């Protein structure tokens, strides 16, 4: 099939976009899905393996109860029905990253079914159906010497082999690439809140495949779907889907038939390209895993897990708006990540000015954090210490500007604000006698500014205030400096 370049002259409104997402989330269990090996990311190749996850002849799998618990926890958060019994199945295919030649997954009887996930796009909210959620095992990682096409050798790292994966399949109810990206963001926020997945797309903890099709607006039947693989970031999901929608729109505009196929997103060239169809013409020959007995899920266990579900991002966001009087957008940022929201709430109990606390978190805290782990930063600057810093600003002990420096020091040393302010003598200079002398000296040293001021340039006063602040190392109380300077300048004028 010839690929018509996107952006051809077609009316995009003629078609409705239909997208379904399959999200694979690595579960944060300490051990693997079917053996006791650790799951730590980044360990030396093949250091976290055993005969079971290497697929040696004779080995048998044993289900990780914790992984099942995590699956149930997520299923409940997605409002799914947790099945009373579920079963594992063998999914057969041959690829060197999977030594058994089958993956233990779930097929006819998944862990949970029929839920939904609420997604916000452009201020409105939609519930996207979730068809099923099941557990399976991850495969090993192939490392090619060079590119896959030219490599002389490929190495296999089985550390990832057998890591628990949770696959969640949405219904084809997403109507735009933006909505798909929003779904994925909401998905990530929830699994991270639930502490079942670290949500790290770069490390592959969260992976996404998409099914995309177009149909004439108003049509009931779905169009031919194309599966897109390798969507390993939020940005890629949106871009790949945009490309694919444009490609299919252009094809349909010239009456070209859409081929049902699997396409790979090439992030470098920003195109989706067809994978050799043979490679993916799978007949997986599923059959029930005979080495595992069907899992009976105890109702009481499910209810225990339900009772322990944390408040989820959307509910928390709403509460932040109503209880703390924060804006929706501020609440959104604060609640997107559980630990950040926890931090905010802990700081607010110590220093009840929610706006001041949120301003500090959104500016200084996030700036210093720069995408790192909140947990690390909050160990250096516990919420109580942030509250202590804000109290020093509120009672005029330090200026907001000095406070930023104090905060940097707090991050570096882990000390509390009063300790730093005391040691470094950062208390605002509010002694008129001291300031009098400094102001006089500054005025004497800046005759030009005085002249300018006399000629009516009020900006000159600002420059003088700046000089005084500089001379005091920023410790002068700015309001006091302003008043004293005003007095002196008015005397000169008369």
């Amino acid at each position, binding site marked *: 099939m010839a690929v018509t370049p996107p952006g051809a002259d077609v009316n995009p409104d003629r078609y409705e976009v239909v997208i379904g997402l399959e999200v694979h989330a690595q579960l944060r269990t300490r051990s693997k899905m079917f053996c006791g090996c650790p799951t730590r990311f980044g360990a030396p190749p093949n250091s976290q393996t055993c*005969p079971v996850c290497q697929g040696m002849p004779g080995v*048998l799998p044993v289900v990780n109860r914790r992984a099942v618990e995590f699956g149930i926890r997520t299923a409940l958060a997605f409002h799914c029905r947790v099945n009373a019994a579920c079963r594992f199945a063998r999914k057969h295919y041959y690829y060197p990253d999977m030594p058994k030649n089958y993956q233990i997954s779930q097929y006819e009887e998944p862990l949970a079914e029929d839920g939904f996930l609420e997604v916000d796009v452009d201020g409105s909210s939609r519930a996207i159906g979730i068809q099923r959620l099941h557990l399976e095992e991850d495969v090993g990682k192939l490392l090619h010497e060079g590119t896959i096409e030219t490599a002389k050798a490929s190495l296999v790292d089985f550390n990832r082999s057998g890591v628990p994966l949770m696959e969640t399949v949405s219904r084809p109810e997403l109507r735009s690439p933006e909505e798909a990206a929003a779904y994925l963001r909401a998905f990530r926020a929830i699994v991270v809140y639930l502490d079942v997945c670290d949500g790290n797309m770069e490390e592959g903890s969260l992976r996404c495949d998409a099914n995309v099709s177009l149909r004439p607006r108003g049509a009931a039947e779905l169009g031919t779907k194309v599966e897109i693989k390798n969507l390993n970031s939020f940005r890629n999901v949106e871009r790949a889907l945009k490309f694919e929608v444009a490609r299919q729109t252009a094809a349909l505009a010239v009456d070209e038939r859409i081929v049902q196929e699997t396409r790979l997103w090439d992030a470098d060239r920003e195109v989706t390209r067809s994978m050799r169809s043979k490679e993916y013409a799978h007949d997986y020959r599923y059959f029930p895993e*005979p*080495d595992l007995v069907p899992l009976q899920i105890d109702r009481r266990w499910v209810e225990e897990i339900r009772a322990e579900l944390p408040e989820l991002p959307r509910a928390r966001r709403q509460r932040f708006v109503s209880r703390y009087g924060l804006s929706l957008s501020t609440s959104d940022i604060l609640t997107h990540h559980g630990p950040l929201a926890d931090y905010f709430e802990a700081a607010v109990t110590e220093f009840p000015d929610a706006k001041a606390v949120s301003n500090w978190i959104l500016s200084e805290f996030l700036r210093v954090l720069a995408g790192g782990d909140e947990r690390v930063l909050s160990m250096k600057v516990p919420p109580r210490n942030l509250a202590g810093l804000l109290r020093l600003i509120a009672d005029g002990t330090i200026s907001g500007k000095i406070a930023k420096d104090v905060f940097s020091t707090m991050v570096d040393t882990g000390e509390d604000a009063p300790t730093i302010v005391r040691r470094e003598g950062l208390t605002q200079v509010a002694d008129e006698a001291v300031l009098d002398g400094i102001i006089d000296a500054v005025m004497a040293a800046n005759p030009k500014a005085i002249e300018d001021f006399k000629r009516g340039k009020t900006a000159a006063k600002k420059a003088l205030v700046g000089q005084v602040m500089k001379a005091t190392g920023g410790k002068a109380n700015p309001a006091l400096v302003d008043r004293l300077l005003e007095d002196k300048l008015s005397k000169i004028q008369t």
Partner: protein
Amino acid sequence: MYQPIHELTDAYRRADLTPTAVAEAYLARIDALDGRLGAYLTVVRDEALAAARESELRWRAGAPLGPLDGAPVALKDVLCTRGVRTTCGSKMLESFVPPYDATVVERLRAAGAVILGKTNMDEFAMGSSTEHSAFHPTRNPWDLARVPGGSSGGSAAAVAGGLAAGGFGSDTGGSIRQPAAFCGVVGMKPTYGRVSRYGLVALASSLDQVGPFARDVRDAALLLGAVAGHDRRDATCIQAPVPDYGAELSKGVAGLTLGLPDEYFIDGMDPDVERAMESRTRAAGFGAEVKRRIMLGTYALSAGYYDAYYGKAQSVRTLVRREFAAAFARVDLIVAPTTPNVAFKHGEKEDPLSMYLNDVFTIPGNLAGIPGISVPCGFSVTGLPIGLQVLGRPLDEPRLLRAAYAYEQATPWRSRRPELT
């Protein structure tokens, strides 16, 4: 060389024999005879002697590990042994050295057993004659022109020929009981889940079960007792306590009801399956027999055929289970011939269907997951052993052993030995 294990350990206790001397004698006999018998694929002389010496120290100190301490045993090459190659009778695994012990092997070592080596088998346990090993066929000690049965023919021949005092095999459709019958020894398939399958290379996960070969029923009880019991590495393993099987034997059979089924038959394979497609990439490492069954799997599980084959097999299995359950509502044990015929000649059964029909009396026990034991019950006019099979309810190994023991004690068959020199 024909002493059962319980007599050997009695002799160790009295210091009439030592485990080292016994191990050496067995190794010497293997050297002398196995060239003709072909029971072993790998003999681990040094490891065996080292284990025997340790056992000897324990016996001398009066602290043996149990009734198997110093017992020379042979393991079917389908059980993974740490550091010792495990081939499954296939060239494909010719150099596979497992980094771990199967649970059964681990428990045997813990019981002080002396492992002599790994025994021959039909490739990947697919076969009923041990002719289909990728290495060499095994011969029946009673008549070297005949097969020992299979797929665990190596272990059966080793025990029958005095090349091991006891052995282990795996039984998927009769692979322990049928060779035991052909070779005139005791062979037992325990209840599915009674013995851990961890480290047993699977032929059919839901049918496979590890079990012992023995000179007599008492040994079978001791060997089973050493390996049975729950294993957290096998999710299908049963969590029931393990009885003292040896102590059960003397309880006798008074009050037990035995059933003799008139009909004991299931339909043969559909010839259609032979038209299955070839899997070229995987054919190279397999022998002909293995290919036949693998092709069945590939075809039977393909989309669209799943219901027709796998589904049908499941419902057949349910029916078989129900029939056994109904039968065991009326009787305690079922007694039947182990095989429809005695050991056949090498190359005699070229037709795979008639080869499979060899398992018809044993397969139902696997489908139902129930325990079965084969004990010698006489000889054909040509002097070949015949086996009697006793089947029981799930986990009813004690009564099974009691009945087999009573029968054995009442008959003279176990005193006859093959002339192998």
